[in-house]
Structure formats: C-alpha cells, structure tokens
C-alpha cells in the first residue's frame, strides 16, 4: 500500500468502521456528509417559515399557551392590509429605504472615486472613513442622540453655523417633520463606508489599459467616467444596493435607540411595529401574518433584483 493521504486514512480507520463504510455507495456516503447541513437548514430556516405561515391563519397568542387556538383564515391579513397605522408604517419604511439608499450610493461612490486617486495619507483616510461601520448600531444610536440634542448637540450647532438659525430652535428627534430625516442621516453616516468599500473594489478592478486606450482616442474625462467607470462599477453598485436595501428593510436597532419609533409613529419602521405586535401586544398570529407579508415583499424584490444584476453582469 502506498503512502498517499487516502491510504493513510484508510489504514487509520478502525476495522469495524471500515467494514461498515465499505458497504455504502458513494451516494450514501455523500448523503451522510450533507445530511447534518440539510437537517440544520430545515430546522432553523424552513420549519420556522412553515410554522409562521401556519400561525398567520390563527389567533394564537404566545403568552397564553393553554388557550384554544382558533383558525381565523385570512382575517389577520385582512386586518393588516386595511389598517391605516400599518400603512403609515410602510410609508415610513419607504421613506427611510429610498433616501438611505440614494444618499449612501451617491456619497459612497463619490468617496470611493476620491479614495481611488493616489494621494498622501490615502490609507489613513480610508481607515477613518470606514470607522463608523465598525461600531455597534446601539452605540451609533446613542451617539447620534447626543449629537441631535437641541442644547448641547454638535449637529444642531453645525446646522446653526451654516444657516444662522438658533441651535435650540429645532429638535431633530423631537420634531415630526425632522425625525424621519434624523434616522436617514444617522444610517447614512454609519453605512456609507460599506457602499464606498464595494465601489472601491469595483473601481480597482478596472484595468488602467482601458483608460489609456480611451485617452489615445481623445475621450474627455467626463466621457471616460460615463462610458468606462460607471458601466464597470454598476454590478458592484447594484450589489451594494441589494445588501443595503434588504438590511434597511429590516432596520431595527439603530432606530429604536435613536427615536424609539417616535415622535408619535413617524419613525416606526415595519420591523419595530412587528416587534411591538409580537412581543408587547403578544398577537402572535397577527404578527406572523405581518412577517409573511414582509418576507414575500423582500423575496419578490430580491428575485427581480438578482435577475437585473445577472443581466448587467452578462453585458
């Protein structure tokens, strides 16, 4: 017998185990290796999903486990989809989602474009810019609560310095018109570096030879930007939008820490509302239906987005 790794493993296998394994087909051995992963996937992902769908058709309350559970059909869905408050929550989520993605993509791409230029202290600036992303969302929420303080907050003083208004004359997290923007600004501050890093990877993957060829053809920098840089970074940008879109759709911690969903309900995003229904009002069946609606929405959006991403990559 040779000294190949396979033979050494075969020699080291106890005789009893070797006899048992020898009787199995390759397919059976493959299943033995894959089975634990499949079992975990079914137990952790698929079973809870099916159970949630089942609960969404009942009036189950998890804080009253001994109560009889009644099958209510589509009533939970009907109540959610005719409720003005849930509708307002969806609009708050849409506002947060659209503005954070727009701002993060624009600022992230601009920062990546600047960082991609060779200049002194380039690495130091990159490290400083990505710092917010490394902080915990709870810390960032707390941190911005202080920045937004009308009396002592640096943000109010910065705005006052630019506009000339009195810093104590407005409260970013206490005003119903400003609070939705307060959470957008905090999230943009925290997650723009993530978009910047993805864009930077895209920019660094463009070979210099393409720009050299464009210069030989006397293409202006503006034209080079629109015909080389943007199309080649687009798949990376789309990936960043997908990640941030899904992540912001379920945004919870930062907003809870910053505004707690207030004032009133203007910053109550769907995930916050869902948590209140499930674990404060204990309407498990209702919140399951809510979760199913959000799941199908994100799943549908992700499906068309991945299709678009593949199209851009194939171009």
């Amino acid at each position, binding site marked *: 017998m040779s000294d190949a790794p396979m033979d050494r493993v075969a020699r080291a296998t106890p005789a009893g185990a070797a006899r048992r394994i020898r009787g199995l087909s390759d397919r059976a051995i493959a299943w033995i290796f894959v089975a634990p992963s499949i079992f975990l996937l079914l137990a952790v992902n698929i079973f809870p999903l099916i159970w949630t769908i089942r609960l969404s058709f009942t009036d189950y309350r998890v804080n009253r486990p001994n109560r009889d559970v009644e099958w209510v059909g589509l009533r939970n*869905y009907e109540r959610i*989809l*005719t409720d*003005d408050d849930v*509708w307002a929550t*969806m*609009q708050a*989520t*849409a506002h947060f989602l659209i503005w954070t993605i727009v701002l993060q993509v624009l600022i992230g791409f601009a920062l990546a474009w600047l960082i991609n230029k060779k200049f002194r202290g380039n690495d130091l600036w990159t490290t400083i810019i990505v710092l917010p992303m490394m902080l915990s969302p709870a810390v960032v929420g707390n941190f911005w609560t202080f920045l937004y303080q009308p009396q002592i907050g640096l943000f109010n003083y910065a705005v006052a310095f630019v506009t000339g208004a009195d810093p104590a004359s407005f409260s970013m997290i206490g005003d119903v018109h400003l609070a939705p923007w307060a959470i957008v600004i905090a999230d943009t501050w925290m997650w723009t570096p993530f978009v910047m890093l993805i864009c930077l990877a895209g920019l660094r993957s463009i070979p210099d030879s393409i720009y050299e060829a464009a210069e030989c053809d006397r293409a202006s920098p503006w034209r080079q930007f629109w015909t080389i840089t943007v199309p080649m970074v687009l798949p990376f940008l789309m990936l960043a939008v997908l990640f941030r879109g899904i992540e912001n759709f379920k945004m919870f911690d930062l907003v809870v820490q910053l505004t707690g969903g207030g004032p009133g309900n203007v910053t109550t995003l769907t995930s916050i509302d869902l948590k209140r229904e499930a674990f404060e009002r204990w309407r498990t069946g209702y919140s399951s239906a809510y979760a199913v*609606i959000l799941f*199908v*929405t994100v*799943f*549908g*959006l992700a*499906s*068309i987005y991945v*299709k678009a991403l593949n199209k851009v990559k194939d171009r």
Partner: protein
Amino acid sequence: MSEFVHGLIRLRRGPWEMVASILIALGVFMLMQPFVLWLYTWSFLVILVGTVGFIVVSHFPEDP
C-alpha cells in the same frame, strides 16, 4: 412587441419573467404609496402573484 407576445404564447422564460417582475414592482409600489388605501389593501395579493409567478416561470425554457 410582437416578439414579446409570441414569447408569452410559447411560454418562454424571458417575457414571463418580465411580466412577473412588473407585477412585483407594481405590488411594492402599491404597498408603500401614500395616496390610496385601496391600492395598499390589494398590494400583497399582487406581490404574492408576482413572486410565485416568478418562481414558476423561471423554470420555463429560454428562447433558443
């Protein structure tokens, strides 16, 4: 346009995926728009039909 309709009739993946994608996008708009409650009420059904449709039609054959 006629190619698109032809693809739909012959159950081709491309045009049917397009229809499902439009349904999903329309449903998400209906879910999050601030104008008409009626649109919000029916949004989930539109998204659900689009999403299930997308899963089904992604198994249709590609155009040769």
